[in-house]
């Protein structure tokens, strides 16, 4: 079970923010194309950073608490999920404030640069 400790933290983040989609109607998961288009470059850039940091010994992972599945450049699968989950939570937070407060973000209908 402890092999899922890191993933459990990420699942907690998704469960914790799910209420924003439901009760504040953030509609982030209902815009999957935009969500995926946002997340892919983030995952690529931060995985590159991770590869360099792991290779240079900046940080290591306790093998007891991660799945043990490694992806490119010895990056644990858990880390890839981190780079997907945290951006989702960040977008949900921004859209939750927009829903609650109607503050401008810069992408409103009618605005175009």
């Amino acid at each position, binding site marked *: 079970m402890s092999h899922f400790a890191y993933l459990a933290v990420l699942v907690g983040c998704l469960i914790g923010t799910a209420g924003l989609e439901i009760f504040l109607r953030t509609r982030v998961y209902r815009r999957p194309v935009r969500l995926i288009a946002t*997340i892919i470059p983030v995952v690529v850039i931060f995985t590159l950073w991770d590869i360099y940091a792991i290779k240079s010994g900046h*940080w290591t992972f306790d093998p007891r608490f991660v799945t043990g599945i490694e992806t490119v450049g010895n990056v644990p699968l858990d880390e890839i999920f981190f780079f997907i989950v945290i951006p989702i939570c960040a977008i949900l937070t921004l859209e939750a404030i927009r*829903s*609650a407060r109607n503050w401008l973000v810069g992408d409103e*209908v009618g605005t175009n640069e």
Partner: protein
Amino acid sequence: MTYTEIGLLSVIAVVICDMYIFRTRLIRRRIFWASYAIIIFFQLVTNGILTGFRIVRYDADAIIGGSTPTKHAPAFIGDGRLVFAPIEDLLFGFSLVLLTLILWVWHGKNGLQRQPVSGPPVAKVAKLLRSK
């Protein structure tokens, strides 16, 4: 490069992306800072779990503070750490969050699933928000 150096460079890079490349200018909007204030709180909580239980360990050569100890948790605060995590994680987190929001908003500006828009909240929550 150390984690400290990469962290600083990444913050500069995302700020340049925001101001001059994608021109989303999020750092000049209160909605960004309000979002970031909420996110940083939860970052400290979740990252505190990951670093306090030493699921992720750091090397002294890469950060301002010392290495994650082998036998016990790192300092809660002090030795270049905040809630167990190296302060460099704040630079990492800021870059991750700002880059994400830049791309999200930029895609929206370009008409990629600008709709359905966020809100309004469900009736009960809306009422709760109004009463405040």
